[in-house]
C-alpha cells in the first residue's frame, strides 16, 4: 500500500491559552501552524480575568506578551472568525475545509485607531462583557483585544438589514473598511489537529433557586470578573446594579455541580480569588463562601486558601441553597453542616458555575469524527496515557475541551500534544 508523504503543517483549533501555547511551541520547531479561532480575538477566557490564582498575577500582563508573539510569528497563520466545515483524510494527511467569516475590515490597513466606533448608530449588548455594557455593530470586544482590528457584526449592522449606512467607512482614514469582503471557504492540508476549544459556563438560569436572572445583584463568575477588570464595563469598580457598593457578598460554589455530575476543579480556587478581589477594593466588606467540599489540591493552593481566609471571609458548608429578595438585599437560606436550616443576608451574590464543554463541541466532534464522553467533553483515547489523544489518531484534545481544568494543566496538555506530534513525526 502506498504510504503518503505526511503533511507537515498543523492545525490548532481555538486561540485560547492552550491553543496559543501549542502554536508557539510548534512554530519554535519550525512547523507551519494554522490557528483558527471562532471569535474575532485571541486569548479565550483567560483574557477576561484581571488576576489569576495563586499569586494574583495580572492576567493581561501574563498573556499580552505571548499574544503579541503569536501575532508576529512568521510560522503561524491566524484565522479569526473561522470554524471547521469539514475534514477528510487520516493521521498525517488531513484536508480540512475552513469557513472564514468576513470581518469587513482589512487586517493589513487597519491600524486599530478605533475611529470607526463612534459614528456607528447601532448599539447592542457586549457579549465579551457578559452583557454588562454595550458595543457598536463595528467593534472590538474590549480595550486591548488582539488582534487590534474591529469586526462588523452582521446580525446587527444596518447594512445587513438592507439599510444604507457607511458611517464607519467614512470615519476610517486608512481605507480599512471593506464592505465587499466575502465569507471564504478554503482547504488546508495538515498532518495533525489539536482541538483546544475551551469551555463555557453552566447556564445558571437552569437553577433558578440561585436567583440569577430574576434578582438584580446575582452575578456569574465571568460577570464578576468583568466588573473587577480594569478594562471592563465599570473600569474595575465593584458596584451593584443601582451603582452603590456592596457591604456584604456571598460566593456560592458548586453551582450546577449536581446537574453536571462532576467537580469542575477550579471554582473553589477562583472563589477564593474573588474573596481577594472583594477585600482589595472594599476592605470592610463582609464575605461568605458557601461550599460543599473544599477542593484545593496542589502544593501552593492550601497556602493561598489560608491567606484568603485570613483576609476575611466566613466559610460555610452549605446545602439546599436558596436565594431570595429581602428588602433592598437578598436572603440566602441553606442547611448548614449540622443539618440546621439557617440564613444570611447579603447585598451581592456571586455564583461559581460548573465548567461545561464549549457549545460547539458536539458539532465539531461529528465533523472530526471523534468521540465525546457522557458529559459531552471530547473523549480521550487511553487513560493510562496523558489524555491528550482523541479517539482518532492525529487529532489531539487539550485544555478544557478535554475536561474542566485550570490554566496550568491546560498549558501542560497543550505542550504534551505538541510533544506527541513531534515525537511521532
Amino acid at each position, binding site marked *: 500500500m502506498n504510504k503518503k508523504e505526511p503533511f507537515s503543517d498543523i492545525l490548532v483549533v481555538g486561540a485560547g491559552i492552550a491553543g496559543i501555547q501549542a502554536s508557539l511551541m510548534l512554530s519554535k520547531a519550525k512547523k507551519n501552524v494554522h490557528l483558527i479561532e471562532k471569535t474575532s480575538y485571541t486569548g479565550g477566557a483567560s483574557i477576561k480575568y484581571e488576576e489569576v490564582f495563586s499569586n494574583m498575577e495580572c492576567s493581561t500582563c501574563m498573556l499580552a506578551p505571548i499574544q503579541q508573539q503569536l501575532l508576529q510569528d512568521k510560522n503561524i497563520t491566524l484565522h479569526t472568525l473561522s470554524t471547521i466545515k469539514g475534514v477528510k483524510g487520516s493521521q498525517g494527511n488531513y484536508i480540512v475545509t475552513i469557513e472564514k467569516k468576513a470581518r469587513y475590515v482589512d487586517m493589513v490597513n487597519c491600524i486599530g485607531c478605533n475611529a470607526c466606533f463612534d459614528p456607528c448608530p447601532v448599539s447592542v449588548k457586549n457579549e465579551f462583557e457578559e452583557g454588562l455594557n454595550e458595543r457598536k455593530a463595528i467593534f472590538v470586544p474590549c480595550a486591548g483585544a488582539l488582534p487590534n482590528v474591529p469586526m462588523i457584526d452582521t446580525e446587527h449592522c444596518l447594512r445587513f438589514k438592507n439599510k444604507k449606512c457607511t458611517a464607519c467607512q467614512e470615519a476610517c482614514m486608512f481605507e480599512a473598511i471593506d464592505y465587499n469582503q466575502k465569507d471564504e471557504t478554503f482547504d488546508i492540508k495538515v498532518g495533525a489537529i489539536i482541538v483546544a476549544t475551551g469551555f463555557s459556563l453552566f447556564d445558571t438560569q437552569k437553577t433558578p433557586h440561585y436567583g440569577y436572572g430574576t434578582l438584580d445583584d446575582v452575578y456569574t463568575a465571568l460577570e464578576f470578573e468583568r466588573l473587577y477588570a480594569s478594562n471592563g464595563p465599570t473600569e474595575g469598580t465593584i458596584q451593584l446594579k443601582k451603582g452603590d457598593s456592596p457591604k456584604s457578598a456571598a460566593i456560592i460554589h458548586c453551582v450546577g455541580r449536581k446537574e453536571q455530575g*462532576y467537580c469542575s476543579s477550579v471554582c473553589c480556587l477562583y472563589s477564593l480569588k474573588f474573596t481577594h478581589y472583594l477585600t482589595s477594593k472594599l476592605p470592610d466588606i463582609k464575605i461568605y463562601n458557601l461550599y460543599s467540599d473544599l477542593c*484545593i*489540591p496542589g502544593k*501552593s493552593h492550601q*497556602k493561598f486558601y489560608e491567606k484568603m481566609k485570613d483576609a476575611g471571609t466566613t466559610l460555610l458548608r452549605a446545602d439546599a441553597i436558596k436565594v431570595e429578595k429581602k428588602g433592598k438585599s437578598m436572603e440566602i437560606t441553606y442547611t448548614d453542616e449540622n443539618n440546621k436550616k439557617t440564613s444570611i443576608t447579603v447585598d451581592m451574590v456571586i455564583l461559581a458555575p460548573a465548567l461545561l464543554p464549549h457549545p460547539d463541541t458536539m458539532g465539531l466532534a461529528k465533523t472530526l469524527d471523534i468521540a465525546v464522553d457522557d458529559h459531552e467533553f471530547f473523549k480521550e483515547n487511553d*487513560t493510562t496515557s496523558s*489524555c491528550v489523544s482523541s479517539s482518532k489518531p492525529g487529532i489531539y484534545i487539550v485544555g478544557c475541551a478535554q475536561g474542566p481544568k485550570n490554566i496550568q494543566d491546560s498549558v*501542560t496538555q497543550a505542550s504534551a500534544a505538541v510533544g506527541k506530534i513531534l*515525537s511521532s513525526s
Partner: protein
Amino acid sequence: MKIGVYICECGPNIAEKVDIDEVIKAVKPLDNVAVVERFKLLCSQDGKQFLADQIKKHELTHLVVAACSPREHQQTFMDVCEQEGLNPYLFQLANIREQCAWITDDKKEATKKAIRLTKAAVARVQYHTPLEKQQIESNPDVLVIGGGIAGIQASLQLAGPERTIHLVEKTSSLGGLSQYYEKTFPDMKPCASFIKGLIETVKNNPHINVYTNTEIEEILGFFGNFEITVKQTTTPEATAAFEVGAVVVATGATPFNPEHISKYGYQKIENVITALDFEQMNLSGKITLKNGKPPKSVAIIHCVGREEKGYCSQICCMYSIKFIRYLQKKVPSTKITNFYTDLCIPGKSQQHFYEQSLGNHVDFIRMSDLQITKQSDKIQITYSNEKDASKKLSVDMVILSPVLEPTQGLSSIIESTRISQGEKGFLTEEHEKIAPVSTSTEGVFIAGCSHGPKSIEETMSQAEAVTGHILTSLIPGQKIEPEVKVSHISESFCIGCKTCLNVCCYGAITFDDLKKVSVVNEVICRGCGNCVAACPSGAITLKHFTHNQVYHEVKEAVQ
C-alpha cells in the same frame, strides 16, 4: 556619527495629533543629527524602502524612528537596518503614538511630549554599541533523573537515532511508585502490568541508556552543553560521564510516613497499614489481616499528614475510593468506612467514579478529628465532626492515606542546576501558569511529582509536555541563539562580594576563584538586569541598557 531621524505620520493618527513640523524643527539642530524627515507610513513597503534608501544616501551610522509602539514595528525597522548593513542595535524607536498621540486631544501637549520622546531617543542612540548575535552548538541528548513513570514516559518519547537518553535511577529498579498499583483511577485500568511493559520497552530501546543504583554526582554547564557525572551507589561505585543538552528532573515523591503521629497508631497497632502497604498487599493477590484472615471491616483514613505538610495531595481521596473497589473485588462483604475532611474529586470522571463506589457496605463519614486505639483484637476509631462530639467505630483494619512528600536528597542536583525548591520542598516551576514544566534554569525541566503531588494521568501529561519543550528547543544539528542583551561584569571594579550571584535566578553568574571576581555566562544570561541593580559598586552593565544610554535618554526626556 550620522543619525537619521524619521517621523511617521501614521496616516492621520500622528499627523493630526502632533505638529510634526515642530518636532522636525526641534530635532534638526541636535548634535550628530544628519537628517530629519517625515513620512506617511513607515511600516508600509514604501516606507521600508524609503528608510533603506535614506540609510544608503546619507551613509547613516544610527537610525531613529518616531512612530508607534516598539511592540508593533521595532523588529520591522531593525530588519531594515540589518538588510542595509547597519547593525540593528544602532536603532532606537520613539513611541509617539500609543504613548503620545493616542492619549490626549491637546495638540500642544502632544507635540511637546513628542519632541521630548524623539530627542530622548536621539540622545540614547548615540550611546548604543553594535551587538552581534551568537550561535552555539548544542547536544541533543537528554539526562532523565528518576526512573518512575514520568522518567520512563519522557525517555520513550524522546529517544531516537539522533538523540540518546541517559535514564538515571537511584534504586535498583525502574518503575517508581506506580509499579505497586494494581490498577489506576478513574477507569480501573491495569497499572502494574502496564508499567512492567513500559520498562521492558525502555530496556529494549537502543537509544536509552539505563543506569540503576546510580546517583548524580555532578552537573556542570548550561543548556545545550551540560557535563554530567554519575556514580553507582553500590560497590564498586564506578562513575560514568557524558554530555547532554537538557536535564529532566523526574525524581517523584514518597508517601508521608505517619509513624510519628501517635493518633494514627501506625507501627504500633497491628493491622494499621499505609496506602502503599495496602497497594502492595493487593498486588500480591490477597487482602488479609496479620493473622491471615480476611478483614470484615475496614476504615480508610483520608488526609493523613495534610495538616503537618500544609497542602492537599490531590490524589488521596481518589485512591482511597479506588481502595473501596479493590476491597469490593477481593473481600466482597467487607464493611468499608471512609473518614474524610473535604472530598477532593476534581475532574470530569472523578465524581462518577466516587458515586459508582458507593453501596450498602460503604460509608463516607466527614470528620474533623480522629484517634486510633487498640481495643482487644480490633481497632477502635474515635472521631468527632460537626454533628457529633465523639463517636466510636470498631474495625478490623485501618488503611491510612497519606499525602505525597517530595523526594529527599536532591540538594546536589538543586545546587548544581540552580533550580529552586519551594516552601513545601517540591521543585519550583518557571511560571505557575504558563511554564509549569520548565524551570528558571534553561534546559532543566521538571515533570511529575517532583513538581507537586499529582495523579498518573497528570504526570504523563507533564512528561509529554517536557518532551514537547525539548523537541522544540533542542533539535539535532540546530544551533542555539542566546540572548544578545546580556550583562557584563567589569573585572577591574568587581570586588567579588557575590551579591550578584545570589540575585541571579538563572544561574548565569559564576565565581572565578582565581581572580576572585564574578563572571557572567553570556549564553545563559537572559538580560533581566537584576544583577545590575544589585551590584553595590555598579560594576555590572547590561548591554543595550547601559548607564549612559538610560541616563541620557531620561535626561533628555525630562529636560
